């Protein structure tokens, strides 16, 4: 399982060398873009981590987790991951901040940390993605798009609980 990352990196490099890409120069270009992305998401990350930290400090997050506990148990999800699951389709930066908070509090290799990581990767920001593309298509009646996308999100989240042993 630990081989995926080195193999993927080898693929990048191998394809580059084979196609005679100037690998160093292109790496630098990409790295610059990556740093710009980190810089660009920072304000939203600040806003959302403030909100999440406040939400957990006042006790409302615990109350929400407690409320969701029966549903979590049913789906074999650690209750700490349910707030992330709910935020995932709504906002990319809010769910990233929530994932960060879960990894920080419970540890990235705890079951909650692993399930949260898988959950984060299993779906996109449904409302944002659909919103952008529907607007681009100039379509008003989106028909079954949102319900089906939310069903996919639900399936991915529940799968996260089943796929991480524990």
């Amino acid at each position: 399982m630990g081989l995926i990352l080195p193999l993927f990196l080898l693929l990048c490099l191998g394809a580059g060398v084979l196609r005679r890409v100037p690998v160093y120069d292109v790496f630098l270009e990409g790295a610059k873009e990556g740093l710009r992305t980190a810089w660009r998401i920072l304000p939203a990350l600040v806003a959302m981590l403030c909100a999440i930290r406040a939400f957990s400090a006042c006790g409302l997050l615990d109350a929400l987790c407690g409320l969701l506990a029966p549903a979590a148990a049913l789906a074999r999800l650690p209750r700490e991951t349910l707030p992330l699951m709910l935020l995932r389709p709504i906002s990319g930066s809010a769910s990233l901040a929530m994932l960060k908070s879960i990894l920080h509090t419970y540890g990235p290799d705890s079951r909650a940390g692993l399930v949260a990581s898988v959950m984060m990767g299993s779906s996109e920001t449904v409302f944002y993605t659909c919103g952008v593309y529907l607007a681009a298509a100039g379509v008003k009646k989106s028909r079954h798009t949102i319900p089906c996308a939310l069903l996919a999100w639900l399936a991915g989240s529940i799968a996260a609980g089943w796929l991480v042993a524990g």
Partner: protein
Amino acid sequence: MLQALFGGMMGLSLLYGLIVGRGEQVASAMLEGAEEAVRAAFAMAGAFAFFCGMTAILRRAGAIQALGKRLSPLLSRLLGPELPSDALEPVLLNLSANLLGLGNAATPMGVEAARRMGGNSDRASNALCLFLVINSSSVQLLPTTVIALRAAEGSVSPASIALPALAATAISTLVGVLACKLMEARSWG
């Protein structure tokens, strides 16, 4: 949506905190959150730059086009005859870029694909619905942002979630596609 989420969470937390006598803790937690966000962004920046650099090589080597060619028969069957012929190429490029985790390259192609699929109708075609559902269920092969964040938080094996994440995203995409196909039969709206 984000205005309500941010305003609601901050406002509720402050009100509830003041009522239960934890107002001060809530305020200092906000400051901690801000500080933590900056630390996290800096900790992740290195991994971000690294992954973007490596995938830039993959992109320059023509991987998006190569992958697109392989996906072509599957997608033209999946999206059916409703797909305008000029929309197939941006669809293929968008999904290939998404698979490789090149979000910045994927979005403009997705917008172009959606524009061509929208046509003059204000009602989404079956093909457009399916394309949107596939896009919003995430099809990334390697969740590099999550790996970067896990590394920043000191995980002993940041990439250990790669396989379960791939399985989960495959399941979510499959469920989305099946749901779309079922709904097509009962044409809604």
